[in-house]
């Protein structure tokens, strides 16, 4: 079971410390696990391969989780349609490629479309219900989940679609390990987008406004922040990140189909719950932990078949939530009565 523990909590270095940057027991454990992963990777080629693959998948989970966190911070709801939105934008990218754009042209066009889609949805469907009932707003996202699923099946059909490989088909061989260029490629693209989003929040006036609007809407409105606009941009950014996640998830599954993001949404939920819904850094770390953890557990723990992957992942997450209900990086809410 030692490998389970190591793997579940590994991977701090990849974005976590940059985003949260506090020395806490959680962080120390994470660094220790990252070291454990590194040692394991140096000793075993299979272990290294699984770790790299896990990091790549984990970065997809992490960025979808980050999208969920952005939406949660902006509007206090969980967007159940986040995964389906990402799936929809991936289909749009496929369509653009069919119309003759190159992969990377389609990639950036899709990001713009995703951003637009996110803001429009917030303004037209979420905002009108949000101030009246939070539950109603959540149900709207559930409706959106079903609607998008239906629309994609209607427009593009449920059959498999194929997209060009974004990173070619090169396979690296390093010390007996063969790694498809896809996985480092996925990881780097996800890392760049997460860092860009973080930089936007950290260094720009827009980002400051968005953080202020999320923390205390009333006060920030008083000092001139356009809170409504900030919330819409938050949704747009979330959809944009989701679009990147969808586009990077597609080559890892080799086919495009309407159920593309459904399992990934589940892992993203797990990542967000693990990292704390308030914490963008936590979401990314949570995603990496789950990606690497699941990959290693299924390989090395005989009792856990791939059928039990989900139940076990969630048993562990439930346990984490019971010990630390606010997630690894969340803050306990203290209320005055």
């Amino acid at each position: 079971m030692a490998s389970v523990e190591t793997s579940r909590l590994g991977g701090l270095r990849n974005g976590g410390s940059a985003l949260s940057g506090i020395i806490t027991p959680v962080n120390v454990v994470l660094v220790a696990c990252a070291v454990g992963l590194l040692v394991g990777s140096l000793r075993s080629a299979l272990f290294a391969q699984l770790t790299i693959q896990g990091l790549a998948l984990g970065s997809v989970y992490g960025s979808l989780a980050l999208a969920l966190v952005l939406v949660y911070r902006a509007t206090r709801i969980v967007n159940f349609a986040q995964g389906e939105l990402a799936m929809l934008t991936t289909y749009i990218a496929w369509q653009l490629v069919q119309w003759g754009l190159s992969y990377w042209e389609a990639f950036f066009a899709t990001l713009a479309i995703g951003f637009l889609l996110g803001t429009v949805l917030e303004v037209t469907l979420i905002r009108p219900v949000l101030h009246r009932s939070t539950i109603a707003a959540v149900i709207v996202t559930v409706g959106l989940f079903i609607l998008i699923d239906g629309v994609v099946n209607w427009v593009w059909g449920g059959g498999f679609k194929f997209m060009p490989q974004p990173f070619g088909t090169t396979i690296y061989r390093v010390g007996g390990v063969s790694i498809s260029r896809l996985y480092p490629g996925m990881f780097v693209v996800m890392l760049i987008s997460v860092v860009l989003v973080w930089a936007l929040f950290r260094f720009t006036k827009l980002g400051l406004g968005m953080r202020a609007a999320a923390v205390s809407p009333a006060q920030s409105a008083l000092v001139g922040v356009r809170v409504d606009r900030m919330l819409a941009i938050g949704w747009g950014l979330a959809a944009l990140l989701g679009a990147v996640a969808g586009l990077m998830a597609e080559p890892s599954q080799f086919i495009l189909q309407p159920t593309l993001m459904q399992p990934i949404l589940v892992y993203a939920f797990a990542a967000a719950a693990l990292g704390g819904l308030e914490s963008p850094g936590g979401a990314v770390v949570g995603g990496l932990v789950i990606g690497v953890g699941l990959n290693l557990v299924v390989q090395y723990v005989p009792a856990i078949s791939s059928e039990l992957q989900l139940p076990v992942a969630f048993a562990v997450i439930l346990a984490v939530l019971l010990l630390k209900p606010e997630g690894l990086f969340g803050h306990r809410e203290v209320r005055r009565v």
Partner: protein
Amino acid sequence: MTRRRFTLVSLVAVAAVLCVLPFVLSDYNVALVAQVGIFFIAVLGLNILTGYTGQISIGHGAFMAIGGYTTAVLSRDHHTNLVVTMVAAFAICFVVGVLLGLPALRLSGVYLALATFAFAVSVPQLPLEWSTFLGGRDGVQTSQTVSNTWLYGAAWAASAILFVLAWLILRGRLGRAFRAVRDSEIAAVASGVELPVYKTLAFGISAAYAGVAGSLFVLATNGFAEPSEFGILLSLEILIGAAVAGLGSLWGILAGAVFVGLLPNVSSSVPVIGTAHGQDVVFGAAVIVVMLLFPAGFAGLIARLRRPADA
């Protein structure tokens, strides 16, 4: 007093219509209305949890799965009377609900929603792992099947019994405690309400209702229980039903049950979009429109109609 008489008259009216329907409708439509009854029970159960304690569950499809498998396995292995298996489903789901309610005590709001979502996704995986006992991907078949009329009678009789039971539970001390927890946990604790007891109890009762619904749900699919019937969509449908219903109104719960029980079937024959996916498009769009127009659900609409001056 007029309010009470109105409620009584409407109850009798609903009961009368339900008694007449099986003699008027075709066999297929009887099955459809039976399905509404099944959703009525599940939505009623979720309404007790969300409406009276403020806890959100996206995991009620999982309780339906547990109830459904209880019926299927008991019938397969012991040829148990189907009504008895429903009682067993009620009891087992109550226990599981209480067990899930215990960790749920520490989680609030959105974390509880995520945890129950996880539960909903995880439970249908279990039959795949324990395939000798629970049939794996092939499912479990009950030893006897029922006619649509039997199903109709069982579903609405169970609905009536469980509705009266809910009324008895909620009108007294327990209901007051639940409402206190919903309105302010801190104030409830300060007034001597034992939060852990009442919250887990609410979870258990709510889960037990879903269990009975699941039991009937399996009988409605020719006594066949398989993992794919109990996907996440089922949990979401119950949640949608509860949201469309709104809080604490019989008419609301009926409307919610009709919405999720009938609409997908009715809309599967939309002319333009085609049969296969018209269902999802229409259902999804309808959910969004209803929530935009009536954020407090059907119950909120009724409340607004009763007091037009406030609206």
